[in-house]
C-alpha cells in the first residue's frame, strides 16, 4: 500500500497529540507546553525542510546540494561540540572530524558510483552520515572529558615518567573512541530484529519492494559504520593533541555538562 496522507488527514492526527495532552494534564506530568512546542516544531521544521528539499531537487544544481550538506555539518558540529565545552577550539575540531567522516564516505559512494551525484540521493544519505557522525562525536567528547577527569593523575604519572602525550593519553582515548562507535555497532547487530531502520521503513512505506529497501539499508549501515569510525578516530587523534600544551603538559579541562 502506498502511504498517502493528505494535509487534512495530517491535521486529524493532531488528535493523537490531544490524547497525550489530556494524559499529561490528568497525570500532572507537566509536559503540555513541551508537547505543544514539539508538535509545532515538528510541523514547521519538517515542512520547511520539505520545501527546501523540493526546491533543491527541482533546481538540481551541485552547489545547492553542497550548501545543504554544509549547513547540516555546521548544525551537527554545533550540537556535538557542546559536549566538549572547555576544550580549546572544539567547534572547529568537531567540525573537521564530522567533515572528514562525511567527505571520505561520500567520495567513496560517488567514486564507486554506488549513488549518483543527485540531490535526491546525496542529501538524504549525507544527512544520515552527518547525523550519526554528530552522535559519535558527542559521545567521544563526553566520554573523553569524563575519563580524563577520573584518570588525570594516571595520565600525569605517565608524563612524569617521560611518556609522550600520545602514549600517556592512550588509555583515556581508546575507550572514548570505542564509546563513540558503540551505538552504530549495536544497531548493526540488531538491525531488522529489534526494529526496521528508518530509511528502509521509509522506502517500504513509499512503495518500494522490501528486498530493494534491504539492499539500500545494507549500504547505509556499512557507510554509517565507516563514517562513524573515521569521525571518532580523527576526533580522538585531535583530542590527543589539543589536551596538551606545547610543553607536553596536560591542560585543565572542565567537567562535561549534560
Amino acid at each position, binding site marked *: 500500500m502506498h502511504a498517502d496522507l493528505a494535509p487534512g488527514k495530517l491535521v486529524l492526527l493532531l488528535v493523537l497529540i490531544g490524547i497525550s495532552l489530556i494524559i499529561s494534564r490528568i497525570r500532572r506530568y507537566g509536559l503540555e507546553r513541551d508537547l505543544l512546542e514539539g508538535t509545532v516544531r515538528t510541523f514547521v521544521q519538517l515542512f520547511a525542510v520539505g520545501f527546501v528539499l523540493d526546491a533543491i531537487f527541482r533546481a538540481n544544481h551541485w552547489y545547492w546540494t553542497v550548501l545543504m550538506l554544509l549547513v547540516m555539518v555546521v548544525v551537527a558540529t554545533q550540537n556535538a561540540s557542546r559536549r566538549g565545552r572547555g576544550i580549546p577550539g572544539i567547534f572547529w575540531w568537531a567540525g573537521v572530524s564530522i567533515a572528514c567522516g562525511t567527505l571520505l564516505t561520500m567520495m567513496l559512494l560517488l567514486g564507486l558510483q554506488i549513488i549518483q551525484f543527485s540531490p535526491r540521493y546525496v542529501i538524504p544519505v549525507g544527512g544520515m552520515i552527518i547525523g550519526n557522525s554528530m552522535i559519535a562525536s558527542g559521545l567521544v567528547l563526553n566520554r573523553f572529558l569524563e575519563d580524563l577527569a577520573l584518570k588525570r593523575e*594516571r595520565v600525569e*604519572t*605517565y608524563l*612524569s*615518567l*617521560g611518556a609522550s602525550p600520545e602514549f600517556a593519553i592512550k588509555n583515556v582515548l581508546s575507550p572514548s573512541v570505542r564509546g563513540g562507535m558503540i551505538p552504530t555497532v549495536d544497531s548493526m547487530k540488531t538491525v531488522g530484529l529489534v526494529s526496521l531502520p528508518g530509511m528502509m521503513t521509509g522506502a517500504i512505506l513509499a512503495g518500494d519492494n522490501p528486498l530493494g529497501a534491504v539492499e539500500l539499508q545494507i549500504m547505509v549501515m556499512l557507510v554509517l559504520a565507516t563514517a562513524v569510525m573515521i569521525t571518532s578516530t580523527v576526533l580522538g587523534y585531535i583530542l590527543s593533541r589539543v589536551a596538551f600544551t606545547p610543553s*607536553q603538559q*596536560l591542560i585543565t579541562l572542565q567537567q562535561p555538562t549534560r
Partner: protein
Amino acid sequence: MSIIRCENLGFRHDRAPGDILGDISFEVCPSELVMIVGASGTGKSTLLRLLNRLQDPDRGQRWFQNKRYEEWPIPQLRKRIGLALQGAVMLEGTVLDNILAGPRIWHEMIDPAEYLGLVHLPTDYLMRPARDLSGGERHRVALARLLANHPDVLLLDEPTAALDPGSRMEIGDLIRDLFQKWQDRLTVVWVSHFLDEVERYADRVLYLEGGSMVLDGPWSEIGKEITRRLFDKGYIEGGVLS
C-alpha cells in the same frame, strides 16, 4: 655544584587570584636528601610539579645539571627528575605493568622482581592487580615504578601520607635506606607533612610559608623555628601538620 637550581620561581593558578608560589630560589646538591615542609596549600606539590616540568612557572628559571630546563628534551628531563605524585597513583593492570611502565616507554630491559625486592615486596605480587593493593603496598609499588625508570632525582610528594604510624615509618626508613644505598647516584626531594619524619631523615629542610621559601637549612638549625611558626599558626596537632 648543584643538580637542581631554581631562581625566583613564581606560579599563579589560572582560576585563583594571587600567587601559589612567589619568588622561590633554592639549590639542591647531588646526593642530598632535601625535605620540603609547610602547611597545606603553601605550594609544596606545585613546586614538585614545576621541578618535573608537569607545569611551567609564570616567572623565574630552573636548571638541571647547569642546563636550563627549556634546553632539555622534555621526556628526558622528566625521566631523570622522576616524580611520584601524591596518593601513590596506580596505573592500569598489574603490579608488573606498573613497574614496567617506565622501561616500556624507554624500551629498556629490567628485572621487575629486583625492583619489587628493593621495596620489600615478594615476587608473587607481580601479577596482582594494582587496584587491589593496600595503601602501604601502593606506596611501595609507586616507589619501585619510579626507581625502575632510573632517575637521578626522586621527587616524592608525601610518600607516606594516609598510612598508619607503623607503615609510615616502614616506608620512610625504606626511602632512607634506598637513598643511602644509592647515594652516589641519587638525590631525593621529599615533601612531607610529618615533622618527625623531617627530623629523622632530612639532610636539609626547606620551609614554605604562603608560597614563599622562608627557611632553608639543616633541621638541627631551623627545626625549632619551623615548629614554632607552625604551632603559632595552629597547624600542629601532636607533632603532625594539620
